[in-house]
């Protein structure tokens, strides 16, 4: 079982969600986040004055999938979130030891 954490452009959330649903992956957590990658933001100009936009708005999508589905899920996210431009985001795959359903206490391994 793996946690797939994706940082994507805000406008790509629906595309990623649709792509994952096609793989029968429906449970997910979506969070508004701000950050920067290698480009460390950029400089913007408003009324002649420059200011740094160091933390860019992004969306974080978290899904937990069986080990066997990881490759397909990563591929689906990559294809759905890609524009080819700097700032498309990142995907992290993290091992998950155990998982519990809070309502029932049921344990999944």
């Amino acid at each position, binding site marked *: 079982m793996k946690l797939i954490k994706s940082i994507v*452009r805000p406008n790509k959330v629906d595309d990623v969600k649709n792509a994952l649903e096609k793989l029968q992956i429906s449970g997910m957590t979506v969070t508004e986040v701000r950050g920067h990658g290698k480009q460390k933001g950029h400089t913007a100009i*408003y009324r002649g004055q420059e200011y740094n936009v160091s933390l860019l708005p992004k969306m974080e999508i978290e899904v937990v999938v069986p080990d066997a589905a990881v490759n397909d899920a990563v591929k689906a996210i990559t294809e759905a979130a890609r524009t080819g431009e700097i700032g498309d985001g990142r995907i992290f795959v993290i091992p998950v030891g155990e998982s519990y359903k809070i309502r029932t206490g049921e344990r999944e391994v």
Partner: protein
Amino acid sequence: MPDPQITPAETPADPRAVRAARLEATRAELAAASERGEGGRLALKQYSHRMDAIVQELFAGAGPLAQPVGVFALGGYGRRQLCLHSDIDLLILFGGPIGSQDERFLHAFLNPIWDFGLTIGHHVREVQEGERLADDNPEFLLALTDARAIVGDAVLLDQFSAATDGTRTATRTLDALRSLIADRHARFNDTIYQLEPDVKDSPGGLRDLFAARTIARLTAPGLLGQGGSGLRALEDAEEFLLRVRSILHLESKRHHNVLSHELQERAAVRLGYSGSTPRQQVERLMSDYFRHARAIDRSLRWALKSAPAPMGQNLVRSADGIRFVDARAAADRPETWLAAFQSALDNGCAVSDDMLTSIQQHAGRFRAEDFFPTDAHRAALLRFLKPRPGLYARLSEMHEVGLLGQMFPEFRAITCRVVRDFYHKYTVDEHTLLTIRNLERLANAGPDRQRFGRLLGELDAPELLVLALLFHDVGKWRDDDHHVESAVMARRMFDRLRLDDHARATIEFLVVEHLKMSVAAFRRDTEDPEIVRQFAALVGVEERLKMLCLLTLADVEAVSLETLTPWKEELLWRLYVDTYNHLTLSYGDEVIDGGQSAASEIAKHAPADLDRRSIEEFLRGLPRRYLQLFSPEAIYTHVRRSRNVAGDSIEAWLEKQADGWELTVITHDKPFLFSNISGVLSSYGMDILRGFAFTKPDGLIVDTFHFADVERFLELNPEGAEKVIKRLEDVIAGRTDLAARLKGIEEGALRRKLPGFAPVVHCDNESSRRYTIVEIVAENALGLLYRMSRAMSESGCEVDLVLIGTEGRRAIDVFHLTRQGRKLTEDEQRELTGNLLRVLEGRS
């Protein structure tokens, strides 16, 4: 009591003699009542009534009227308490300017009264003088509070009073009254216990009684029943003092009000005081006098202490908020209701519960049009809707009592309307009002919201944004396409409020497109320049961009407490900045080339004197932005005037606008042209607030300057506009040296310069394919535009396009420059920046 009968003469009597005899009989009647000690309210009312009849008769016989005239009784006569030797105080109001025929009428009317030997105090006024009523003398303001129509056009008094600023007049009347009371009491050493009191002027006398009643009438009619000595005690005191006063006039045979020792004895006898000696009779009389004087004094002090503050025509502020002085009169005048909410807004308080109850009871009787019957009322509504703290609370009060729904029936359609979705947490009406609360809170925004708060402060007409918010969701009474339905409903409101074309277009745009910015900001890739370009094309100009941005912010935040996150704010702001930059920096590359539908529409609907080809030719090469800045009518005028431009000739004209003046110049470009035009305006002290300069590839320029005539040159000089245009022609033709003329003004401006922020000059060679763009943000000052553009021309630059903006004390100008037809090199940019900073900092 019947009128006193005059014995008919056998021959036709002289009307003057008949009137004199009737007056004499009337006076004898009052004298007899006074002798019996019965010259109180009833007798004086009778005498006043008989005097009214005489005045009416004289009015009818004074000859033909050239215009509406009304005669009104003032002061004691107005109160129907005319004593035997009282002055007859009259106000004679004319509907328009007083001419020679009116003066003949006045003589014919007033002379017979003087002939009777009566003392007249008369005021002759024109209705329009009511505009200055608040500045009139205090005694006249007070006398007016008792004004009563006797004969003629009674409506004139309403018009006279309505022409003035109600709050100022009421406040000044009360201030005057307080001051007159203090002065009068000081003359009597501030004590009622005078052994020889003046029954009219002494503390506790008749004037104090009328003062207490006037205060109550102007502020709270029930005031004297709520404290002081009570109404019954005041009535008794009034009757007593009037009877005594009538005796004093009778005994002294003149206007005499002092109850001297000698007259005390006679008054005691006439009033039937018992006692074995005159001394005992007098002591009982004076004991009664002081009892009544104390009652009046106590009530006056209560009134002075407890009266609510006047807040406008028929409005006061009491402990629980703004309320009507006369709720019954207000109930039939719905056009006055908004003033109460405006007053509450101005004073940071609520509208009182009893007033809200009264409005709730009566609101349903009126149509939407009844609330805004005149241009002044419609303008007052727009003024009321300017966003500031308290607006949401006042609108909510209006909504709760049904007033908002009567003023805007479209809004009634969404009252308590529930739309079930995953996001909205409130009914549609409350969501709408919350958007306005969100907007008004921006006025005092904390650091995290200041950038949006500044946008709000920069709007020319923020009330249009509030109107758009009020209407943006009214279409939700239906279940589909609510933005389209909202726009349809908003158009009905446009007609009722008679909004101008600009206001209609702005509100309709905001209502129809109110979802577009949130879609673009939150669901599109705003880093894609094409998305920004499309969005910039949608909004067109900066003002609409700012409004749509603020509307979106307020709308999203009003969905629920959690909906607008800092993350979303950032996305919204980024889209705003990118679009703003596109509108101001990149528009020079987007020119009209014949393929634009807007241009085709302009050409297609050309008036008969313009052919399609000449319009297309004029438009070709101008930035597309030009089409969004000017109405079709303005564009047709430009085309017409441009046909007269040949060689060095110029077409220039001035137009008065709602908030200033506008100069338009069409001519062929030449060095220093832009700086010369702005310099000419500065030479007349004009403050240039906003404007645009466009240059076509063929060298034709179209420049517009919106400016404030700070020194009122155009207002005070009938030929001022011609002089400005003549100087402009002379300067552009090189016949007048502008620099010498402006030198003194510039030095003065630099000396007066307020300490402010450091100027910003930013050169940009990236945003446009054709131009170097120079953005300048600096402290606004007279001649600033002239000095900056002159520095550019002196640096060898051509000024091709200019956006001129002023926001408060900040001038925000964007210049599109070239040098010998190309962009500036980096060295040239550095040199220009240095020159500009020297100019802006006053170092050259």
